[in-house]
């Protein structure tokens, strides 16, 4: 029996839980989001920047947190913990224990008076102990919910019955010391677990002196130090004497790849975050030199290898490879740190002012407890057990696991999986899906009103305010015409500030709003919804981009940046005075989807969509489904081919999926909810599109490949090994063939793991075999490290070559001869192998270019598809209604592909599950009194949105189809009578911007 309400529980309010909750809510499911802490946000909220774009972490996270807080489909249960579960999918009854906050959420106005008067100071866990907070506190300024809570262990009243200051000063009578813990029973159809991880306790590595030596920090502490809103406002200092360090050492693999502490796995993220922290630290501290001690540099993600190269070449970061630091000794006087390590030549003792430990990720006790409560199986490392071919499923049907709970992983992968779990969880309850209808706040009629503009100039913590003189910009804004209110704001995007904005609009009867902060490309939707909730038309918002296009690009010219910020605000005001309310038409949504590509990703997307009763057209250019996965070797019992045929047969018997084989999509027109797909023989409509067009294996031109049968690729070897043991005794594997090379600098992510699997298989077939792996870095990230360990245990020999120099392969008579430098032993190796295996990389599908043009979606510089945002929108394109999965996005393993593909399906379902979507309101409008029906606009419109028809004999007028018009404005330029206006970017508005921009210039 299906559960009556379509409800899902998501446990864990970090970025994975947040994304999962939002996708479920957007697809018509009720969500209970359970978080143990007083606020959601998780570790991502503590980060300063995120690699590889160095986006400010809080800036990109905050809009999502705000959305969770205001989405009526999401019930946020903070300070709560799952303590029991009964029943089975789709009828779980979950017991949730809610711990007392001692502050009534419905009353707290987060004024902060209580914390001001609280006498009890304790270490602030959000700043990792680098600052103090009070016993009544909020974790961080953008916290959702922004409600104070009392830490009962440290409250004088709750522990000793003294004080009571907070209750006395609270203006809202929100303090309630009598609050008790309660257990609530919640009925849900499925459960998603996203409890996250914690960082390794660095004190367990006693040789590094953490906790004893003041100038040894963990990476997360250093992250808080780097954060502009952190306890040191972004200044890098030594804790022993507050002096600015001249050099910092970063030690990798602290608590990772380390059997001695029970964590032999790799933590996946530390290489990249260390590079990031080193870059940012150097940016913040003129003259600072940073050194990183790596074992291997695991820059495997999208554009990570570029980031690594820039860190070395442009930022001058010193990088040691193949080094695990033996110990650290503090100089008792200077408090400097002597770092002891082995170089290929010698034992070195190098002095640093400060050391940062790149601590790994470990399963948290809370997560283990949660797993136990729910009967979810864990691996020996304490991560949730999943299988390669169902990466999101736990052993309990209806309970899914995402993010770092199942293995250490980075944010984009966690986010994609979180969406994926939304698809899986939704499949248990989709029959009772609720049709989402937002509560509309009636719009205030502002017809005939004089513009009354309010302007908020954002500090963005310190991102803007450390460069731009924000108070001066505020003062200036007050002098501008029609500006009735101008104020500085610390974090304009925080949840509580949305309430402030709404209140200021009401109090001051504002009819227009300007936010001078970051880019409208990421934050316009947030502020538009805010003013909509205040009764203003969303088009009454203007933004001035004084961060991305000002403070961040003129960091060394604060005065000129301030002048520019003033200009940008003046321009925004000029346009704001001319904006008008616009109303979008709404359009019915077609409930079926097009999936391009029938490989592992495409098949997974199709099955996930079909599982919720959406129709899918799956197009594969080859004669059968399967794609690359058919060639991949997975584990002893599972071949890629068997998985492919299993999925293909499920697809074959699924009535919701229509498969088109041996054909390509010819053309696609239309827009989100209403695409028209032209195929060779037919044309059909879909509401959403998923691009899963795969990639291709690099076929080498080097190393006698194709000329000598003793040279093959790893894929070919895997295929060969399926047929039985090799005759070859000596095998040389050469990594990074066609990857990390001058003509293709990217890392293909999967080749190291593929090499390990094949090497292990060879050694198991024939323990006498000699397998040599020539490599630059072994990149068996995450739990794949076990394969590396296993290969080494079986006797595979690893030879580290130079970054810029590939091994040489020549023929001596009939013999193959490999030679290379070995940088670990500081020597040279010659080898006569019977077989040479090339770890060839993955290259973008040559079809990508054509597809990218057809869909009007971009490619990255490496030729893969470029998502809307590398960190938080990993499967979306910037163009609405089009999504991305699998190798088309970037090289990845089979389990990563499946998790991400489910994510793309979930994102597509946020569209497909709706009956109507609102169209674009900023489109063209014809003033018929001026139109002479000449037809220039009709001729120029690329979307056939304009037709000129006779309205009376001899009198033709142009007409715009609002469903087709995309608002590019080409028609307005073409019109010679000024009859067409492209709304929100009108001639008058743009001219006003030009005038405001150059105001005062020529005088």
């Amino acid at each position: 029996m299906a559960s009556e309400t379509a409800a899902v529980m998501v446990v864990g309010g970090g970025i994975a839980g947040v994304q999962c909750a939002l996708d479920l809510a957007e697809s018509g499911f009720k969500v209970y989001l359970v978080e143990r802490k007083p606020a959601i946000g998780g570790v991502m909220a503590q980060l300063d920047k995120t690699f590889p774009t160095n986006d400010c972490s809080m800036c990109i996270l905050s809009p999502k947190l705000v959305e969770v807080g205001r989405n009526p489909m999401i019930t946020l249960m903070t300070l709560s913990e799952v303590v029991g579960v009964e029943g089975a999918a789709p009828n779980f009854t979950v017991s949730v224990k809610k711990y007392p906050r001692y502050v009534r959420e419905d009353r707290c106005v987060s004024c902060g008076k209580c914390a001001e008067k609280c006498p009890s100071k304790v270490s602030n866990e959000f700043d990792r102990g680098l600052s103090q907070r009070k016993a009544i506190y909020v974790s961080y300024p953008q916290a959702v919910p922004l409600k104070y809570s009392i830490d009962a262990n440290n409250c004088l009243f709750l522990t000793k019955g003294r004080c009571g200051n907070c209750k006395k000063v609270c203006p809202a009578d929100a303090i309630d010391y009598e609050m008790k813990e309660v257990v609530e029973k919640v009925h849900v159809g499925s459960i998603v677990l996203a409890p996250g991880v914690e960082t390794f306790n660095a004190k367990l590595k006693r040789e590094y002196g953490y906790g004893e030596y003041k100038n040894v920090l963990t990476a997360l502490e250093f992250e808080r130090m780097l954060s502009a809103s952190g306890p040191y406002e972004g200044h890098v200092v030594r804790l022993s004497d507050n002096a600015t360090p001249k050099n910092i050492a970063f030690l990798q693999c602290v608590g990772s790849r380390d059997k001695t502490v029970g964590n032999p796995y790799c933590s996946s993220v530390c290489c990249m975050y260390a590079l990031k922290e080193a870059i940012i630290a150097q940016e913040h501290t003129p003259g600072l030199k940073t050194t990183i001690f790596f074992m291997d540099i695991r820059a495997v993600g999208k554009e990570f290898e570029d980031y690594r190269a820039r860190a070395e070449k442009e930022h001058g970061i010193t990088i040691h490879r193949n080094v695990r630091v033996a110990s650290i000794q503090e100089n008792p006087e200077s408090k400097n740190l002597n770092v002891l390590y082995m170089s290929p030549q010698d034992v070195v003792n190098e002095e640093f002012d400060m050391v940062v430990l790149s601590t790994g990720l470990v399963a948290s006790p809370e997560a283990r407890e949660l797993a136990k409560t729910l009967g979810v199986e864990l691996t020996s490392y304490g991560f949730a057990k999943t299988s390669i071919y169902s990466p999101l499923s736990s052993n309990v049907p209806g309970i899914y696991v995402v993010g770092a709970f199942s293995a250490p992983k980075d944010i984009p992968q966690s986010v994609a999986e979180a969406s994926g779990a939304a698809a899986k969880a939704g499949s248990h309850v989709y029959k009772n899906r609720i049709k989402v209808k937002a509560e509309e706040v009636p719009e205030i009629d502002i017809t005939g009103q004089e513009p009354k503009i309010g302007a908020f100039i954002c500090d963005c913590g310190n991102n803007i305010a450390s460069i731009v003189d924000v108070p001066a910009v505020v003062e200036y804004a007050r002098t501008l015409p029609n500006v009735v209110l101008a104020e500085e704001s610390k974090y304009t995007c925080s949840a509580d500030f949305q309430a402030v904005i709404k209140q200021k609009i009401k109090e001051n009867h504002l009819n227009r709003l300007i936010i001078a902060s970051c880019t409208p490309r990421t934050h316009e939707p947030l502020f538009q919804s805010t003013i909509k909730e205040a009764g203003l038309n969303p088009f009454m918002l203007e933004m001035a981009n004084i961060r991305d296009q000002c403070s961040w690009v003129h960091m060394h010219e604060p005065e000129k940046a301030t002048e520019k910020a003033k200009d940008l605000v003046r321009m925004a005001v000029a346009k704001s005075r001319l904006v008008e309310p616009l109303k979008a038409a709404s359009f019915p949504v077609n409930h079926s989807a097009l999936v391009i590509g029938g490989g592992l990703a495409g098949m997974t997307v199709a099955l996930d969509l079909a599982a919720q009763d959406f129709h899918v057209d799956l197009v594969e250019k080859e004669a059968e489904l399967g794609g690359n996965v058919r060639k991949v070797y997975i584990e002893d019992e599972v071949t890629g081919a068997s998985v492919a045929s299993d999925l293909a047969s499920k697809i074959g018997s699924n009535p919701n999926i229509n498969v088109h084989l041996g054909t390509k999509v010819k053309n696609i027109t239309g827009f989100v909810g209403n695409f028209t797909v032209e195929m060779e023989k037919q044309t059909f409509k879909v509401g959403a599109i998923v691009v899963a067009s795969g990639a291709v294996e690099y076929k080498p031109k080097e190393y006698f490949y194709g000329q000598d049968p003793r040279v093959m690729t790893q894929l070919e070897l895997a295929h060969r090994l399926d047929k039985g043991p090799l005759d070859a005794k000596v095998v040389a594997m050469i990594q990074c063939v066609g990857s990390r090379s001058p003509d293709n600098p990217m890392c293909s992510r999967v080749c190291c793991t593929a090499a390990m699997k094949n090497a292990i298989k060879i050694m198991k077939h024939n323990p006498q075999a000699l397998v040599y792996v020539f490599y630059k870095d072994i990149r068996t990230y995450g739990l794949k490290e076990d394969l590396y360990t296993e290969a080494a245990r079986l006797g595979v020999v690893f030879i580290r070559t130079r970054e810029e120099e590939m091994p040489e392969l020549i023929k001596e008579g009939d013999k193959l001869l490999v030679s290379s430098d070995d940088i670990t032993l500081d020597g040279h190796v010659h080898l006569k192998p019977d077989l040479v295996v090339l770890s060839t990389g993955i290259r973008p599908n040559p079809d990508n270019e054509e597809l990218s043009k057809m869909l009007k979606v971009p490619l990255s510089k490496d030729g893969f598809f470029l998502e809307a945002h590398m960190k938080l929108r990993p499967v979306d394109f910037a163009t609405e209604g089009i999504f991305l999965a699998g190798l088309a996005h970037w090289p990845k393993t089979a389990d990563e592909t499946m998790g991400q593909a489910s994510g793309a399906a979930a994102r597509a379902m946020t569209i497909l599950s709706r009956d109507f979507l609102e169209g674009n309101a900023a489109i063209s409008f014809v003033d018929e009194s001026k139109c002479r029906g000449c037809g220039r606009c009709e001729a120029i419109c690329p979307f056939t949105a304009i037709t000129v028809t006779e309205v009376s004999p001899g009198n033709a007028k142009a007409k715009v189809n609002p469903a087709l018009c995309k608002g590019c404005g080409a028609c307005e330029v073409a019109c010679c009578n000024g009859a067409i206006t492209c709304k929100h970017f009108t001639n008058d508005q743009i001219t006003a911007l030009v005038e405001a921009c150059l105001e005062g210039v020529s005088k």
Partner: protein
Amino acid sequence: MTGFEPQIVAFCCNWCSYAGADLAGVSRFQYPPTARIIRIMCSGRLEPQFVLKAFELGADGVLVAGCHLGECHYISGNERAKERVARTKELLDVLGVDSRRLRLEWISASEGIKFAKTMDEFTKQLIEMGPSPLKGEA
């Protein structure tokens, strides 16, 4: 001449060049604070009169930036931008404004570095050329 700081008006399309300018910021690529960006949805939205207005009001340079040819979010808007910029350059020559003061660039969303470089180069070029002859006349 020393100390001359050119004034640049930059028309950037929403989908590629404006995003490229944001990426320059996110990547912290530094460039001279000489330009003010006006966001338009498509480079094809560019009216020659916007450019003329900018020069009339004393701009030393105008940048028009859009998606690479073949990659326009609106299919072919950038091709029309290309034609219009060519035509506007002719007009500028007639007006006695060196047409190199109007610059057209294709900058994609992933080309933060190109955006910053363009700003650098264009600024240097305008410094060499000196103030626009129309400056101070309005």
